[in-house]
Structures are given as structure tokens and as C-alpha cells.
């Protein structure tokens, strides 16, 4: 039946403008375009709408449109359901997808608004006054003790847990080498260094070329333990235990053997061409006490010099789980909401499991405060953060920092065609094909990322200025500065905010 599937997109070539340069044929990673009988021909069914041909055609001769007459209109049996059923009828397999959940669930970010100062308290102009975004991730004690020296100065007596400094409360989310190209990783690492933030290796190990960026690296320990050894753990600034991912809670990972080339093989410490399978749970974590053991094993291995982060997907019981993680000894909790991206996940999982980050974050922050242990951990929130506005709202709900994956990919050129799992990324990001990966210039991509972070930090400073505060810690957890628009009493209660107008 699959052969009868209509194309999702139609590639229209304006032959009056096409000069038959055939650049589009070379640019398409999906093999959609070919040159036959002196003209460019499109195999529409292969088109992923990644916009590479559209963007690179020197004549501007290509347009990609939705196939307008795909199916008879039906609000219940959407074209996607029909298409998926046909695909499964033909293959009998799980359907895969990439990117984040794209379904029409309510976005709580879009139902919250921030406050601003008027008259009674002055707003602050970030162009004239200092505006501080510096953030430290790590476990903090409830109190400090000092001794007074003879000269009247003070000496700190409290022994602090390791803290990692961010110049902007942003980190790049975990994306493994394997899922994305080495050039993409280099770009993230360079941008993280330039911006004074962190990037994350994901579960694919750390390529030797990136050791130079170690102090800006979160090294991840995932269930597959790819590339994990003593040297790796000690390269990073933070070690992250990945227990879950927002896009696929409860699901492991699978990097197809096709993507495991020589470089990936060496970095992951697996044979070339072999599938890299991350089991759903860590095989040494079947309970919270197991997690605690791993946290302390890592702390031992890194001499208690690095904060240990635990990443979990936002699920129904996330607040209690986070509380357990804080008590298990984690320094940072990474919460990944259901809009978070993925290189590959079963569509049915991505689209139906997990909860929005806004609700998860609000529930976790409140729970930890009620238990009096909020200081013990920093919270990183992720999963669909699209702009500095979303970032500011997440911080106001209680996040110490946000993580951005999809936004970073888009800054590097991604058009969100969601075909990462095919390894055909025409933009050279989510692929290992050398003819594609070389399209991504790491320096250029790093510049784009740096620009984006700079833009967000300028915007965050403007937001803080409007709020009349000059340090990000005065926004963090300050839900008084948020209001809900179009939310039910229960939703407002969970978010811990008032409705607009009150």
C-alpha cells in the first residue's frame, strides 16, 4: 500500500527561472531531485520540506508547498493518522520521527505574561545600568558561616559544593555525536566557550578534538555508557546522568549502524557499523538508592570536584521523583518537558508521553521548597524553550537555567523537517554523511549560536529592566511577576501564579 501514499509536499520548480545549474540536485540530502531530460525533476514523496534546495537555488526558482489535496477532510482521521496507518500496513514496524512533539497541546508559555514597572517602581535601563545574568549551578547550603579577621574582613568557613558558572542562564541541551555531526558539536563547544555557558556531549562520548572545551562541557552518562571512562568523566565541568529524555520518556536510544563511522566508533568505543543501543533504564539503576550509588560513584571518580546532574523526563509524578533525586545527592536536576527534541524516537511515544515543562517545573520547584531542599539542587528546565520570553518565564517559575536544543539547531540552520533519524540532514547537522557534514562550517555555526545567545541575553536584560530588577536571581522563582491568561483555576494553582488582572 505504501507505494500509493501521496506525497506530503510538492516541489515546484519554476522552469522559466531555472538555469539548470543542478545545484539543487546536489544539495538535497534526501535524493528528491534529479536532472533528467535537461530539466530538474522532483520525486515529491521523498521531499522532507527541509528547505535546503529552496534556500540555495541561486535563481530562487524552487518552492515547496503542502500537497493540498492529499486526503478528504476529516477532523478525526487526520492525514497523519491515515499516512501512518498505510506505512504500518506496509512495514509492520514502529514509526520513527525526529525533533520535538509538534502536536496541538496547549503551550503554557503562551498563556503566561510577565509584569513590568510603571511609576511606583522605576524600570531600569540596561544600557545605563549593570544588568546581571551570571548564574552558578550547583548545590548550595542553607546557610554560611564566616569568621571575622583582625583587619575587619571576613573569611568563609563553610565548605561549598562545586559550582559551575554561567554568564547567561542557558546551556545547550544534550545532543550526541552520532545523532549530530562533529562539526555541529564543535560549533556548540566553541559557542559555549565564547558565551561562557555549557554544551552537553549527549550520550555519544567526547571526541578528542573537543577536549579543549572541557571546562564548558557537560559530559553525559547515559544507559548505553558509550564513551564513558575515567578520563571522559574528568574532562567535563559537570557530569550528567541521563535517566530520561522529554521526547521519549521511558525509552532508550538507538543509533543505527549506518551512522557509526570511524570517528563515531572511536568516540563511543563501539565497532564501526554496529548499532548503538541505549537500554530504556540504566541496568544499574532500578531504584532511587541505585541512582544515589551511581551519583556517588561518579563523585568519587571525579574527586567531588564536579557537580553531578540528573536528567529526567517530565512525567506525571515528576515532583516526587525530583525530590528523591535531590535527596539522593544530585547537585543539579535537569527537567526535560514533552516538547523536547530527539534525534530519533518512536512517533507514538514522542506524541503521547510526558507532560509540559511549565507544569513540571512549577510542580518540582514548589515541592522542593515545601520540603525545604530547594537550595540543595539547581534546576535546569528544557523542552520547547523557543525564545528569551520562554526562558524568562521558565526562570520566573523557578528554573536556575534553561537548556536549548532545538533552538540551537535552528540557529545552526535547521529547518525542523524532523527527519533527523534518517541521517540525511541536508544542512549537515543531524547526519554523518561526509558530503553533508562538510556543509556546516563550525566557525560560522558557532558565530550563529553566539549571536543567538547574545540576542537572548540582551532581551533577558531588557525584561529584567522592565521588571525593575538588575540581577537574574531576583526573577528566579519570582512567580509574583507572572500572570496567567486563559488558564483554569487548577492550571493557575499548579503554576503557582495569579490570573492577569489580579
Amino acid at each position, binding site marked *: 500500500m505504501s507505494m500509493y501514499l501521496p506525497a506530503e509536499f510538492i516541489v515546484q520548480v519554476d522552469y522559466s527561472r531555472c538555469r539548470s545549474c543542478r545545484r539543487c540536485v546536489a544539495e538535497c540530502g534526501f535524493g528528491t531531485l534529479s536532472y533528467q531530460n535537461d530539466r530538474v525533476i522532483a520525486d515529491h514523496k521523498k521531499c522532507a520540506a527541509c528547505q535546503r534546495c529552496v534556500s540555495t537555488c541561486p535563481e530562487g526558482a524552487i518552492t515547496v508547498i503542502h500537497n493540498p489535496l492529499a486526503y478528504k477532510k476529516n477532523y478525526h482521521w487526520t492525514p497523519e493518522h491515515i499516512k501512518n496507518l498505510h506505512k504500518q500496513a506496509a512495514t509492520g514496524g514502529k514509526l520513527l520521527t525526529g525533533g520535538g512533539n509538534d502536536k496541538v497541546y496547549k503551550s503554557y508559555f503562551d498563556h503566561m505574561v510577565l509584569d513590568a*514597572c510603571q*511609576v*511606583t*517602581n*522605576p524600570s*531600569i535601563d540596561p544600557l545605563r*545600568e*549593570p544588568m*546581571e545574568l*551570571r548564574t*552558578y549551578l*550547583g548545590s*548550595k*547550603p*542553607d*546557610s*554560611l*558561616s*564566616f569568621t*571575622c579577621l583582625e583587619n575587619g*574582613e*571576613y*573569611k*568563609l568557613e*563553610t565548605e*561549598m559544593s562545586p*559550582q559551575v558558572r554561567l554568564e547567561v542562564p542557558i546551556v545547550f541541551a544534550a545532543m550526541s555525536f552520532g545523532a549530530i555531526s562533529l562539526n555541529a558539536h564543535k560549533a556548540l563547544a566553541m559557542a559555549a566557550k565564547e558565551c561562557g555557558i555549557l554544551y552537553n556531549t549527549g550520550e555519544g562520548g567526547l571526541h578528542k578534538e573537543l577536549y579543549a572545551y572541557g571546562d564548558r562541557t557537560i559530559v553525559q552518562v547515559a544507559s548505553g555508557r558509550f564513551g564513558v571512562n575515567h578520563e571522559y568523566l574528568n574532562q567535563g565541568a559537570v557530569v550528567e546522568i541521563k535517566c530520561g529524555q522529554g521526547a521519549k520518556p521511558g525509552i532508550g536510544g538507538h543509533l543505527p549502524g549506518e551512522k557509526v563511522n570511524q570517528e563515531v566508533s572511536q568516540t563511543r568505543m563501539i565497532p564501526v557499523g554496529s548499532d548503538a543501543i541505549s537500554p530504556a533504564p540504566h541496568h544499574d539503576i532500578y531504584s532511587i538508592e541505585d541512582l544515589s550509588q551511581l551519583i556517588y560513584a561518579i563523585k568519587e571518580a571525579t574527586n567531588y570536584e564536579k557537580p553531578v546532574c540528573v536528567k529526567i523526563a517530565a512525567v506525571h509524578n515528576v515532583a516526587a521523583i525530583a525530590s528523591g533525586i535531590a535527596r539522593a545527592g544530585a547537585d543539579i536536576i535537569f527537567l526535560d518537558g514533552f516538547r523536547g527534541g530527539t534525534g530519533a524516537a518512536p512517533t507514538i511515544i514522542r506524541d503521547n508521553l510526558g507532560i509540559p515543562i511549565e507544569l513540571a517545573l512549577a510542580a518540582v520547584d514548589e515541592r522542593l*521548597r515545601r520540603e*525545604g531542599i*530547594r*537550595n540543595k539542587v539547581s534546576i535546569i528546565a528544557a523542552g520547547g524553550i523557543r525564545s528569551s520570553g520562554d526562558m524568562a518565564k521558565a526562570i*520566573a517559575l523557578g528554573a536556575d537555567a534553561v537548556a536549548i536544543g532545538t533552538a540551537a539547531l535552528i540557529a545552526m540552520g535547521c529547518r525542523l523537517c524532523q527527519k533527523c533519524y534518517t541521517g540525511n540532514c541536508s544542512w549537515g547537522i543531524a547526519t554523518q554523511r561526509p558530503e553533508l557534514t562538510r556543509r556546516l562550517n563550525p566557525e560560522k555555526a558557532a558565530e550563529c549560536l553566539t549571536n543567538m545567545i547574545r540576542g537572548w541575553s540582551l532581551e533577558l536584560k531588557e525584561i529584567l529592566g522592565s*521588571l*525593575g*530588577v*538588575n*540581577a537574574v*536571581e*531576583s*526573577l*528566579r*522563582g*519570582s*512567580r*509574583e*511577576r507572572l500572570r496567567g491568561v486563559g488558564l483554569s483555576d487548577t492550571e493557575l494553582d499548579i503554576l503557582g501564579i495569579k490570573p492577569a488582572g*489580579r
Partner: protein
Amino acid sequence: MIGTFPRIPSGCAISGMMSRRARHMTGEAVIKSIALMHDRSNGLGGGFAAYGIYPDFKDHYAFHILYNSKQNRIDTENYLKDKFVIDRCEPIPTRNVEAVTDPPIIWRYFLKIEEKNLYHNNQLIDERDYVVNVVMHINNKIDGAFVMSSGKNMGAFKGVGYPEDIGRFFCLDEYEAYIWTAHGRFPTNTPGWWGGAHPFCLLDWSVVHNGEISSYGINKRYLEMFGYKCELQTDTEVVAYLVDLLHRKQGIPLDLTCKALASPFWKDIDKMKPEQREVFTVLRQVYGSALLNGPFSFIIANSGAMIGLNDRIKLRPMTVGVKDDMVYMASEESAIREICPDLDEVWAAKAGEPIIVELEEGVKV
């Protein structure tokens, strides 16, 4: 009902004076000083804190309480009897002042704690924590009752009206204190609530505040983690509680407490010597949620000190004047000159730099 008003942003006038030798002065001077800044308030709140006013009861906790009704008073007194030995209780003397209308019932109590009450499950609890819990309970759980102040040998006098009228209403010319602070309020809303006026007090801390705490939301949530309940919905109360938490409970020195509330900028911390850099970096890391942000000038006082503090970029005025053993702080220099024209020294307080005035060494109150 007390305690259910929305938060009220306000502009204001503040004035404070302290004798470092603990010489007692009547309230006339401080009334004169705050009255000069009449135009900075709008008649919706005025108040005073006075230290050293109850020498005959100086070891008692002096509770000043506002009640909406007689029944509220009976309920509260039943609770107080359960918690304390009440050695004396009486209405606070007032005189009729035309401009002060519809006052609540205002009483004061001189209280001692029986030692057996300080044991909870055989654990000795700190006497002051005990008092804090009682204050939190009355303010949040008992309808129509509000504790204006709860310290030893001190008290707060406040209400709805211009501060000079409130001062006369409470007969402050008849009290003698070595520290006086005063507040005239200009709320941008119109609740006729006596409890909402300044100073805000807890134990012997008092705070008068000009400005608005834009970081109130997180300061409140931070304090709640340590058992403080900020349900009075006025941003000033967080200042009193933060000072209580950091300085009294956690033992952070007073000047460092001020540096946590109005911390130096990172750019300045980065320039410090390594040891000091560590102190201030960690102070911000740990007490970031206690940072007070937004425009403010405060005068915070306790039995031994008066502290002036401005926000980090000085969005509110404050002037300091010194004459012999007297130190004055006020929103305007004129308010100081009004009562002490011939100052030895006068200067504008710097952004984020606390001015801590303590009793001279050896001075006994």
C-alpha cells in the same frame, strides 16, 4: 479582614535618629522631622518605632496588637494566655486627634515565657523562635488581630493618617527612646488598614522603608522555606524577616547581611582580592534569593543598632547626618536640619553601602 489585602506598592518618607550613648529623647523631634516631609506621604499611613521606652519591663516581650473587634481581642488573649505569662496588659494610651478616624482596638502586653513552654517534644527551642511562631500564628491564623511589634523594651506605633497625626494620636511626646524611626506613607492604593503602615517589626527588629521590593515574589518564597509566613502581602515585611533569618538565626554578621540584601555587583566582586572575592561570590551564590531588588531606602533598627541601606543603584534618596553622639538618617537632608541644623557631618548614603550605627562601647541601655 486583616491580611487579605493585595500587595500595595508605595512611595514614602523615612526618618530615624539614634543616640549612640543611649540618651533618651521624647518623640517630639522625630515627629517634627517626619512632618517636614509631609508631601512625601498622602495620609494613608504613618508610624514610629521607639527603643528603650519600657525600662520597667525591659525583660518582657512587649506586644503591641491591633484588633478589629472585642471578640478578636478575647480570642487572641486566650491564645496569649496559653503561650505566655501576661504580667501586664492594657490599652495603649491615645488622644483624640481630629485627622485620625476609626482607629482599631489597640492594646499592649508585657509577656514572659515559662521555661516549660520552651520544650517541644523534650527539645529546647530558642525563645525567640518561640516568639516568632506566636507572631506568625496571630497574624496569619487569628482573624482581625495583628501584632505591630513584639520586641523587648521597644514598640511600634502606627496607623492610617499622616505620621505627625499618628504621633500625636499615640502621645509619643510622652515616651522616651534612644532610637526613633518614623515613616510617612504614600501608597498608590487606598486600603484603610492600620496594620499595613510602617514600621514592620519582628522581635526587636523594625523596618521603615521607602520604595518597593521588586524581588518580593522570590524573597517571600525563600522565606517560606524557612518557616516565615508572608501573608500580610506587604513587601516590607520580607526585609524584617530576612534580617531575622540571616543575622539572628544563621549568625551572618550584620554588615555581611546587608551585603547579601544589597549585594555588590559581579563586576566589583571580580576585582576583589581572592579571599574577599570568595566571600562575596559565595554570599551571592547562597543568598541570591534574599537579594532585595528594586528601589528602596530602609532604616532597620534593633535594640543595639540603626542601619540605613539603599538599593544597589540608589533609586531612592537617603541622607545621613551626625552630631556628637546623635546619628540621623532621612529621605531628605531638610528633615534632619529641621531638628538639628548644626550637623558635624552630613552625606548622601551610597548605593548598596550599609550605614551601621551601633551603641558606643560600654553603653548600657
